[in-house]
């Protein structure tokens, strides 16, 4: 099984507190983090920070799918950021799609993690997302096939760095329980590589 090629460039934007250009395979996103910043009056929480996630598609207005991505990103980030450290403020996470080759959500999540690390905000743990696909011929791969209708199912798992436990799971298509378990263990192996990659890219910076 071929592993995915990941590359990142931290701090590419001057305005956000943390930013990254991140690509996995051919999927590329830019992520930026502002925070903690002044919160909107109706969003401010008394005991913790509010996480605002924005996901911008390349063209057109954000649709239902983009809203779904947004909510996944928000939920995962909320779990990872030490929100209790920053009451009555907002942490703004913005993801801009640059190029999409299938594993957009996992790429966006990994970029969000790197951008958060780059911004230096307090976090409870790091998180890494891995996507894998089931072909029509039942084989399990990381790279999506060129033809989209060759995909039978798609799995996306997010793991935390402390306990290496699963913090989010997102699936698409039909599959058996066995296949789900296979995909989970495969992605868990791969996520260790991702954490390694995160650490290396931070030390280089």
């Amino acid at each position: 099984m071929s592993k995915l090629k990941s590359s990142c460039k931290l701090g590419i934007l001057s305005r956000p507190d943390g930013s990254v250009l991140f690509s996995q395979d051919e999927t590329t996103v830019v992520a930026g983090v502002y925070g903690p910043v002044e919160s909107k009056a109706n969003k401010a929480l008394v005991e913790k920070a509010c996480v605002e996630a924005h996901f911008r598609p390349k063209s057109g207005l954000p649709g239902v799918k983009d809203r779904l991505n947004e909510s996944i990103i928000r939920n995962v980030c909320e779990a990872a950021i030490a929100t209790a450290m920053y009451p009555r403020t907002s942490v703004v996470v913005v993801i801009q799609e640059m190029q999409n080759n299938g594993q957009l959500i996992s790429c966006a999540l990994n970029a969000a993690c790197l951008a958060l690390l780059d911004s230096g905000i307090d976090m409870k743990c790091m998180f890494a997302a891995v996507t894998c696909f089931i072909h029509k011929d039942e084989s399990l791969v990381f790279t999506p096939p060129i033809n989209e209708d060759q995909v039978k199912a798609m799995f996306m798992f997010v793991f935390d760095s402390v306990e290496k436990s699963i913090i989010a799971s997102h699936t698409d298509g039909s599959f058996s329980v066995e296949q789900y378990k296979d995909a989970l263990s495969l992605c868990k192996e791969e996520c260790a590589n991702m954490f390694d990659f995160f650490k290396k890219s931070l030390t280089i910076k």
Partner: protein
Amino acid sequence: MSKVRETLITNCERKFLMKCLSEWRRLDGRSFDEFRPLELKFGKQWGSCYVSLGNTKVLAQTSCEIQQPKSSRPSEGILNINIELNPLAAPHFEAGRQSELSVQLNRLLEKCVKDSKAVDLESLCIKTNEKVWALKVDINVLNHEGNILDCASIAMLASLTHFRRPDVTCDGEEFIIHSYQQRDPIPTVIHHYPVCITYAIFNGGEYILADPSLLEEGSADAMLTIGLNGFKELCALHLGGKAELAPSIILSTVSKATSRATVVIEEIKKSVKADTEQRQEKASVGFHTEDNFKTTLVFGQSLDTWHTNKKKRNKKHKKAQPQSQNTVVIDKGSVEHVPQTENKKEVWDVDNNSDDDLIIVEKPKVQIELLTDSEEDDVVILGPVKNKK
């Protein structure tokens, strides 16, 4: 609410900027009519383009769909331009909401490209009164460091030039859209390339700065935007703010802008051509390619290459430094201490130790040639050391 997140420009900063301007200096070391470095990159998809003008960064994507034409223009395609101020660019930008700034930028871009009829809309017609192509250019501002308009106009033009729409055939009744694999896609016909060039005006035209940065933009009296094409034709002119400008100043600024327009248009054409050639050679293209991650970590690659790159660069810098020991180049070559030599015409007489007597070279781009002492016959060229980090 979003006002709280906005970065305000303090009186202190403004005063300091004005003081620098009175000494004919800019904060980033550029000369008054110097622009920030321009860089264009293309994505894997047709019509996706990433442009950076200094630290201002913009992503443009052209897309197309088939629509019914407007009844007033039954044989013309449709061009839509949409600029989005992404919350990534500045904390006070709100996603999906139009602001005064975004409407103004959108209108200026439309004025520059749509109203000057730069894109041949009639070639986008498939069947009169029934089906035409509607092109849409989405511009996402990624980083706001001043002068969004120039950057966006370059990105838009590059994206339109780069874009190719699928071929369509009609067999009497049905229209068939051929995929990119089936038939070669068709490029858009562009008659001329109008680019926006912005100048910031201070003190009623006393100081005119090209390509203003965020601070300069915020403290300027007025902004003069000039839309020009490669034939030196004026496509748009917009003066925003409050400044009493003499017509002669506007005319002289326009003539200054023409040379810049030619350079920018050449750059756009050159990069689109280079990208197309790369595609023809079946080389991998797109934002994911390694060029975009230079000097950063690529997964699976050892760290050694990065370190050697760094070392090499350091060596280069040492070589680039002038060999004469008495010569010190300070900050991007804009200020220089030069020892006393016989050639008085091109060398200044400065005490090496006193910092007060720095000599300011107004235009750092100018290369200064000077002859060292006659024993060594070589000529030392003190070029501005760029990209020195």
